[in-house]
């Protein structure tokens, strides 16, 4: 579905991303694991069009070249990013946030259906449609953020550390929701520090270190890999 080949990104002279290649298929949940500063966030921002990709790299969605395309057109092509820090409209209501997600032309026809989907996925939002998002808890804000992204009717959902700052219970609920979204046929690329829970629901995973992919495998294989256990799962 989305094919990323050899993309690099720089902040000034600092190379944050060094020739990363990966892909995510339809109905597939792929987790990207890595330490702080490994380039996970830059990777998602580069795909989402918020950080420029250095010449030589290519991002393609279902065969269509998206390299160098502005962020709002990448959304229109079916790639939705939920950035770290959530990317929501704090001063607006839940309803406004969700309906803003349906701004791209591709999302308008399915607006009502997607709203029903989001509200069935996160029933708590249904009671809070008129509440200002800024006044909600972190977990609820995360639901709004993911809901807003789903309203853009994406084929691929990119999530940057959605579990950050959530209680263990909220975290578990969140990962269950993500698995349900995947089962509905979306491709999900999930950047996470919470390796244990994310590998449990992941189909595949990549390991990223200093801006490079240093390992890849199925969720099960990565969970069993001693190196991964040492680095990310806190085992011996």
């Amino acid at each position, binding site marked *: 579905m989305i094919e990323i080949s050899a993309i690099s990104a720089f902040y000034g002279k600092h190379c944050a991303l060094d020739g990363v290649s990966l892909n995510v298929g339809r109905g597939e949940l792929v987790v990207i694991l890595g330490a702080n500063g490994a380039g996970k966030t830059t990777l998602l921002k580069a795909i989402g*069009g*918020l950080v420029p990709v250095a010449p030589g790299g290519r991002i393609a969605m279902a065969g269509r070249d998206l390299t160098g395309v502005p962020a709002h057109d990448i959304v229109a092509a079916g790639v939705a*990013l*939920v950035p770290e820090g959530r*990317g929501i*409209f*704090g001063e607006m209501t839940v309803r406004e946030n969700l*309906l*803003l*997600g349906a701004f791209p032309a591709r999302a308008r026809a399915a607006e009502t259906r997607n709203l029903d989907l989001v509200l069935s996925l996160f029933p708590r939002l249904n009671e809070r449609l008129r509440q200002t998002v800024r006044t909600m808890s972190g977990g609820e804000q995360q639901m709004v953020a993911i809901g807003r992204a789903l309203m853009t009717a994406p084929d691929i959902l990119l999530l940057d550390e959605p579990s950050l700052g959530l209680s263990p219970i909220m975290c578990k609920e969140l990962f269950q929701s993500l698995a349900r979204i995947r089962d509905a046929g979306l491709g999900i690329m999930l950047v996470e520090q919470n390796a244990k829970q994310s590998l449990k629901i992941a189909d595949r995973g990549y390991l990223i270190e200093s801006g490079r992919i240093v390992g890849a495998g199925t969720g099960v294989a990565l969970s069993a890999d001693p190196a991964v256990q040492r680095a990310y799962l806190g085992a011996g």
Partner: protein
Amino acid sequence: MTLTLDILLSGLVLGGMYALIALGLTLQYGIARIMNLSYGEFLVAAAFGALFLFTGMAINPILGLLLIVPASFAANWLLYRIVLTPLVKRAKNQGMLEVDSILGTFGVLFVIQGLMQVVFGGALQSYSYLSVPVHILGTTLAANRILALVFALIVGGALYVLLTRTRYGTALRAIAVNPVAAQLSGIDIAAASGLAFAAGGAIVGAGGVLISMFLTFSAASGVIFTMKALIVVIMGGVGNMMGALVAGLLLGIAETAVARLVDPGLTIAVTYALFLGALLWRPTGLFGRPAR
């Protein structure tokens, strides 16, 4: 009693104008992120336009709105596209764009003001349209002031409905709240900013026409209106429409009261005293959120 009512009514009219022009500045500053120092020049240019249409072609200012508002919209859109877009593109961050746009529009201010000096001269101008007294609740008010207030309410109300009840209007507000999330919702910020800036220009054009119906103005008056719009925006809280309305009315009534009761020369002093008071009491504006 009559004096109080008189002050309230006249203050309401003046304050309504301030609120209206502050709304336009909010669009330009809150959404397009341009601090436009030449804002008041467009107001004065619109006032001259209304004067020219009325005295030269016998077109009344209300009809004149139909010509001047679109013209001001177009002029501001061009200003954004030609002069400001290069600044937006090269700005690495919000602070840099703010400094660049202040300097850039400061230059535009002098260009427009100079052109108006050449074409219309430096004298104070006014014209007499519907300056017949109307009796309201025992006091009198000129008909043109009432008409100006009514049209300010219509324009402001229409803007409010557009911004809160339509998809594109909601998208414009979303840009003011969180530009990154707006992009990620598929909103083309560059195009929307140009449109918001032009819409702000349309509002100040309408304000200029309405104000010219009852106030005297000259080619040099623009700066005062820019300052007052800015003060109202900051007092009300940047991007807050309700705040702009309340702050605008407050300013209008305070100025009128001081001009009638003490001395007309003190209005500017009162403006700044009120501004200072509001900032000391609530630094983020009357309706602004507390800073985090």
